[in-house]
C-alpha cells in the first residue's frame, strides 16, 4: 500500500520532469500544448491520489504530511488549469508572431520544470533539498533573488550547524522530521540567526516589502500564464518553506518567537503594497502588487498564530491562489485583445466583452475581500480574531485593507465601466479555467465541506 503511495509521490515528481524533457525536444505547437495540458492533468490526478491512499513513511528525502499536501494539491490543480489557459493564450501569441516556435519549446519545458521544482520543494523532507528545489523553481532569477538564495542557503547551513551536535553529523541533521523532534535542545542563538536569514531569504521570494522589488517586474514582463503561476503558486512555495522553519523555531522555547517578526513584515508589506496600488499604470503590475499585499496578510495571520488565525491564513492562501490566477487569466486575454497593459487604455469592458469584464469584476471583488467570495471569510476571521487580541494591530490591518480596497475598486471602476475604449474585437478565450476558479472561490465563501475544515484545523494545530 505504502509502495503505491510512494509511487504516487514519484509520479508527482517524475511526470513533470519527464514531460519537460519531452517538450524540450518535441516540435509543433498543438502537440506540445496538448501534451503540456495532459501532463499537468496527470500530475494533478497523482496528487489527488495522495489524498485517497495512506501516506508514505517519511524518508530522509520525501515527506508527505497534512501541511504540504494542501500545497501539493493546490499547486498541481492551478498548474493544470493554467496549462489550459496557456494553451489558448499561446495560440494567440503565435498568431501575432510575438512568440517564436523555438521560444515556445523552451517555454513549455520551463513550465514543466517549474512545476517539478515546486512539487519537489513541497515533498522534500530535507531542508537542503528543499532549498535546491526552490532554486530550480525560480531559475528565472535576477541579482535580487540571488541575494535571497544566498540568505536562504546561509540560514540552512546555520540550521544544520545548530542541529549537528544534537541529531548527529551528515544527512540526518537536515531531515526536517528529525529536526522537529529534537528542536527543543538546539542552540537557540544559532537558530535565531538562522531564522533571520531564512526569513529574509525565502521572504524575498514571498515578496515581502522591502524585499519585493523583483516581483512586479517578473509579473509584468513574463508571459501571463507565468505571471499566474508566479502569483498563484511560486509565492506559496516560498511561504511553505517559511512555515516549515517557523514551526521549527516555535518548537524551541529558548529561541525568539518568530511571530512578531512575521507580523511586522506582514503589516509593512500590506500597507506598502496598498499605497503602491494607487499609482500603477500597468494592469499586471497592479495585480502583482495586490499579490504582495495578500502575502502580507497571510504572513501576518501566521505570525499571529492560534487556531483561528492559522486556519484563516491557510484559507486565505488557497483562496488567493485561485482568485489571483483567475484574475490573471482574465487580464491575459484582455491585454491580448486591447494590445496593451496600460490601464488607461482599457475602459468599459462589461459592455464590450461581458464575460471577461464581469469575470474581472468578480475576481477583483473577490480579491478585495467582498462576500460572498472566499477571501471575505478568511479576512473576517483574521481581523475579528486579531481585534480581540491586539486591537492596535487590527486597526493598522483594517486601514491597510481599506486602502488596498480603495485602490483596487478605483481601477476596477475605470476598467470595467464607463465609455468603452480600445479594440472591441471578440475574444477567442477559454473561459473555463477562470470561471472554474471563481466558482470554487464562490462556493468556498459560502460553504466549506466538513472534511476540508477538519483537515485545515489539523494543519492549524501543526502550525501552532
Amino acid at each position, binding site marked *: 500500500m505504502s509502495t503505491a503511495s510512494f509511487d504516487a509521490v514519484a509520479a508527482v515528481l517524475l511526470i513533470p520532469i519527464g514531460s519537460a524533457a519531452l517538450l524540450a525536444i518535441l516540435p509543433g505547437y498543438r502537440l506540445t500544448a496538448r501534451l503540456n495540458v495532459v501532463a499537468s492533468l496527470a500530475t494533478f490526478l497523482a496528487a489527488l491520489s495522495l489524498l485517497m491512499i495512506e501516506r508514505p513513511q517519511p524518508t530522509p528525502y520525501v515527506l508527505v504530511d497534512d501541511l504540504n499536501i494542501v500545497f501539493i494539491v493546490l499547486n498541481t490543480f492551478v498548474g493544470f488549469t493554467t496549462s489550459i489557459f496557456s494553451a489558448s493564450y499561446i495560440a494567440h501569441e503565435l498568431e501575432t508572431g510575438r512568440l517564436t516556435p523555438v521560444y515556445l519549446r523552451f517555454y513549455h519545458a520551463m513550465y514543466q520544470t517549474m512545476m517539478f521544482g515546486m512539487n519537489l520543494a513541497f515533498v522534500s523532507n530535507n531542508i537542503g533539498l528543499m532549498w535546491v528545489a526552490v532554486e530550480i523553481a525560480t531559475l528565472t532569477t535576477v541579482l535580487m533573488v540571488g541575494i535571497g538564495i544566498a540568505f536562504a542557503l546561509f540560514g540552512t547551513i546555520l540550521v544544520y*550547524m545548530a542541529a549537528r551536535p544534537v541529531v548527529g553529523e551528515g544527512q540526518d541533521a537536515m531531515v526536517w522530521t528529525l529536526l522537529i523532534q529534537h528542536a527543543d535542545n538546539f*542552540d537557540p542563538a544559532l537558530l535565531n540567526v538562522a531564522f533571520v536569514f531564512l526569513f529574509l531569504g525565502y521572504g524575498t521570494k514571498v515578496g515581502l516589502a522591502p524585499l519585493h522589488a523583483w516581483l512586479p517586474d517578473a509579473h509584468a514582463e513574463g508571459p501571463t500564464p507565468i505571471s499566474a503561476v508566479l502569483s498563484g503558486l511560486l509565492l506559496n512555495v516560498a511561504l511553505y518553506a517559511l512555515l516549515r522553519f517557523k514551526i521549527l523555531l516555535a518548537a524551541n522555547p529558548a529561541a525568539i518567537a518568530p511571530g512578531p517578526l512575521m507580523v511586522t513584515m506582514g503589516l509593512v508589506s500590506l500597507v506598502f503594497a496598498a499605497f503602491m496600488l494607487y499609482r500603477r*499604470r500597468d494592469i499586471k503590475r497592479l495585480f502583482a502588487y495586490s499579490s504582495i499585499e495578500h502575502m502580507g496578510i497571510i504572513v501576518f495571520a501566521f505570525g499571529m498564530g492560534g487556531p483561528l488565525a492559522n486556519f484563516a491564513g491557510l484559507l486565505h492562501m488557497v483562496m488567493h491562489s485561485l482568485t489571483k490566477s483567475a484574475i490573471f487569466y482574465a487580464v491575459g486575454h484582455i491585454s491580448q485583445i486591447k494590445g496593451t497593459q496600460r490601464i488607461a487604455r482599457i475602459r468599459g469592458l462589461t459592455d464590450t466583452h461581458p464575460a471577461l469584464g464581469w469575470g474581472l469584476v468578480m475576481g477583483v471583488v473577490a480579491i478585495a475581500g467582498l462576500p460572498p467570495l472566499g477571501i471575505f471569510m478568511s479576512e473576517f476571521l483574521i481581523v475579528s480574531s486579531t481585534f480581540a487580541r491586539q486591537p492596535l494591530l487590527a486597526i493598522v490591518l483594517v486601514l491597510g485593507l481599506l486602502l488596498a480596497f480603495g485602490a483596487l475598486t478605483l481601477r476596477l471602476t475605470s476598467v470595467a465601466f464607463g465609455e468603452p475604449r480600445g479594440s472591441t474585437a471578440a475574444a477567442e478565450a477559454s473561459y473555463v479555467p477562470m470561471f472554474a476558479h471563481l466558482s470554487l472561490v464562490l462556493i468556498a465563501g459560502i460553504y466549506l465541506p466538513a472534511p476540508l475544515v477538519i483537515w485545515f484545523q489539523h494543519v492549524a494545530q501543526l502550525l501552532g
Partner: protein
Amino acid sequence: MQMHSLDFDISHTLAGGLVLISFMMLYQDRLYSLLNVFALHALVLALSVAWQAFIQDAPHLYVTAVIALVFKAIVIPVALHRIVKQLGIHRDIESAVGIGPTMLAGMGLVALSMVLMLRVTAEADPLAREDLAFALSVVLLGLLVMVTRRNAVSQVVGFMSLENGLVLAATGAKGMPLVVEISVAFSILIAFIVIGIFLFRIRERFDSVDVSALDHYRGERE
C-alpha cells in the same frame, strides 16, 4: 590533540585571511585591482576548502575546492577583464559611499557578526563558532561591497565574495551534505549573471543616471 589544535589554527588563519581580503576589496578603487583581489579571495577560499576536506577527510570537498580555484580564481576574473576591456568600462570605480565610512561600516558588521556568534553555546564546537563568525562577516562584507559600488562588474564581484562566504560556512559545517551541488548551482548562477552583463551590454552600472529608460522598461510612466 596538538595536531587538532594545529588543524584548528590553520583553518582559523585561512578563514581570518578571507575576512581580511574582503576588507581589502572594500577600499579598492580600480577595477582591475578589485578583480585581482577577488581572485586572491577565491584562491584563499579554495585553500581553506581543501584544508577542510583534508581534516574532515571528506574527499568530495576537494571538488568544491577545485571549482573555487578554477572557476572563481581564474575563469571569472579573466572573463571580467575581457568584459571591462571590450565594453570599455572606464577603470576607476565610483563608490556611492566614501571609502572611510565604508571601512567603518565594515568594522561594525564584523563586530556585529562576532557578537551574534559569541552567543552560540559552547557545545557547538569552537571551530564551528569561529568559522561561522568569519563566514557571516564575509557575507555581510560582500553585501556591503554590492551596496556601496555603483559599477555593475564590482557588484558582481561583491556577490561572488558573498557567495564565497557561504561556501566557507558550508564547508566549515562538518559533514554537511550537498555542499558540492550547492557550489555548482551557485557557479551556474554567477555564470548566468556574468553572461547577462555581457549580453545586455550593461556598460557602467545597473543604475544609469536617467531613470526614464528604466521606467520605459517598466512600462510604468507615460
